[in-house]
């Protein structure tokens, strides 16, 4: 599904990614871990099309297509979704209107019919219940005045509604208490399916107790310095990143 080869990128002339290689297939969950400043979020941003990064080398293919050539919204149309670390507040933009317009924009781009109001309402209520997002928040402005946990629940709600094929979760666990973490992980797990892949970017192993990864990659200084199964996350939890960083430097 996704093939990243020797991806190198910089911000304002400062190299952040220094040759990332990663293969993601459908039905797989990949966890990207690493210390602060290792380039985890940069990778997530570049995959979703956020501006401000210069890709100096390498390629990213998504279903055989050059992903980096696509506009942000085209990536969304083709099933790429980024759950953001810091969801943006949109004062005055109604949460439900936003969700419906997003769904319809994606459907339209795929040549599908728009969703009717009744089906939409039914689905959004059902999904909101699954992520325990207060229905009142659906009628409010997007993320405006939401707590940290509510914002993250709202991200997962969007993901559930848009049903992406490649979902990238950027530090979705940051700032969440254990109950919220569990709810969100449950929501994410509901979406696991044979034709869908997940990339979970996280600093802590904690989230991976609930969203079980098939592969764990450790990112440091813009490179994947170690890949392994889910046991790698447990090892990291025990020994910290220092252990690997020393190894990589040696």
């Amino acid at each position, binding site marked *: 599904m996704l093939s990243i080869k020797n991806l190198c990128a910089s911000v304002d002339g400062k190299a952040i990614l220094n040759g990332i290689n990663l293969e993601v297939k459908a039905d797989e969950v990949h966890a990207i871990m690493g210390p602060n400043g290792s380039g985890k979020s940069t990778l997530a941003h570049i995959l979703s*099309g956020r501006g401000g990064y210069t890709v100096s080398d390498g390629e990213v293919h998504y279903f055989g297509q050059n992903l980096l050539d696509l506009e942000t919204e085209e990536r969304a149309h083709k099933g790429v979704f980024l759950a953001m670390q810091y969801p943006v507040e949109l004062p005055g933009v109604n949460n439900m209107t936003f969700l419906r317009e997003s769904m319809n*924009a994606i459907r339209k781009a795929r040549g599908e019919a728009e969703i009717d109001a009744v089906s939409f309402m039914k689905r959004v209520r059902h999904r909101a219940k699954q992520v325990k997002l207060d229905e009142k928040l659906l009628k409010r402005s997007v993320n405006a005045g939401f707590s940290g946990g509510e914002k993250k629940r709202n991200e997962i709600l969007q993901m559930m509604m848009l049903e992406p094929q490649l979902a990238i979760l950027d530090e979705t666990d940051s700032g969440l208490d254990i109950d919220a973490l569990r709810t969100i992980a449950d929501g994410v797990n509901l979406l696991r399916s044979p034709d869908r892949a997940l990339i979970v970017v996280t600093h802590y192993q904690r989230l991976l107790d609930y969203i079980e990864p098939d592969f764990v990659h450790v990112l440091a200084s813009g490179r994947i310095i170690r890949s392994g199964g889910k046991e790698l996350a447990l090892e990291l939890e025990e020994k910290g990143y220092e252990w690997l960083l020393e190894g990589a430097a040696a």
Partner: protein
Amino acid sequence: MNACASVFQQAATEYIDRLSNCEGEWLTEQRQAATQRFAELGFPHAGLEAWRYTSIEGLLQQDFKITHRTQAFLHHEMIQQFLGEPVAARLVFVDGIYQPNLSVHTGQTGLSVGSLHAAMAAGDRSVLRGVGSLSGIGDHGFAALNMATLQDGAVIQVSTGVAIRQPIELLHMATKGLSGQVQHTRHRVVLEAGASVNLVERYLSLDSESNYFNNMVCEISLGEGASLVHQRAQEESLTAYHLCDVHLDIQGDAHYQGVNAALGGAWSRTTFHARFVGEGANCELDGLYLAGEGQLTDFHLNVDHSVAHCESRENFKGILYGAGKAVFDGLIHVREQAQKSQAHLYNANLMLSRRAEVDTKPQLVILADDVKCSHGTTVGQLDDQALFYLRSRGLDKDQAKRLLCLGFTNEIVDRFQSEYLRDHLREEIVKRMSYERQV
């Protein structure tokens, strides 16, 4: 005085000479005094602080004519598409002339509606004596011209304690026939003590290229404990000129809630003179403006806290795109005796183009020492992060921009009580943002 001004003065003098005497000496004297005032003042110019950023050069170049029109015609079907919710009364003005056949009055007790022209024809002193009672004969040239040659307008009076639930609508339609002319209309609205009314003012053009000048004055008096909801939507043609001075006297414990939308006009300027004359009164004033290529939109607010224990809140938001230009000047004056006043003034501008311009000047002049006042102004662009967020959810750049612009204006649109107007304005905003292509 420049050539154009002397032409206007000549026209005003001739206009007054032609009037029959039936409207009474008092009004004729006012007209003559206003003509004299105009001769002294001439047209406003950039040397005057209140007109510094609002050039009238383009307006003067249009060479508008003052004409004495008594007839205008519009078929009922032509206005049908502009009608919203049921009304207690609707006064339709076509090219500034009251149209009894298009107007509606449900005949509710305690509500009196009529036209200024009818009052003038009948020499109705009780109405005519009120003309200019709040505005004076004119504090700038255009206002003086309005007084000198005013022809028609609405006269609305609501008796003590009467609550009119359904709106009273003033619908102004400009036809092609108004092109090249200036129209002087003046409304007078009196709410007696404890009366409550929902007043809707709409300005529409039937011809998108019609080039005319609406030079309006609106005098509104709120008696003790009266309550007025005042919804105004200016959607003149994009080649028209629109000037309106709203004079507002607010007695004790009265409540005024005004909301404005200025979308149309090549050039438009609205001035509010709100004056508290009794304690415990409240004035809320909101507005939104959109100005694109070839447009200038101006709001001047002048809120006078002349007595204690009154509250005012003003919130105006604008979107500027293309080479659109806006002027915002909000002055809150809290006088020495106006203790325990509360006044909060905000102005926010969203700039969608580098060529757009806004000149904003919020001012608080506070002479009392026990007050709560604040003001704030912002001038910003669309947030890149917000645009990215929306695009990452599948919306293209234009859709994302439209949604954010609607979001920006929603706070003001929601202040319109009329659902019909809220929906209509949102549609118009979306339309305008769809034509807009530059970032």
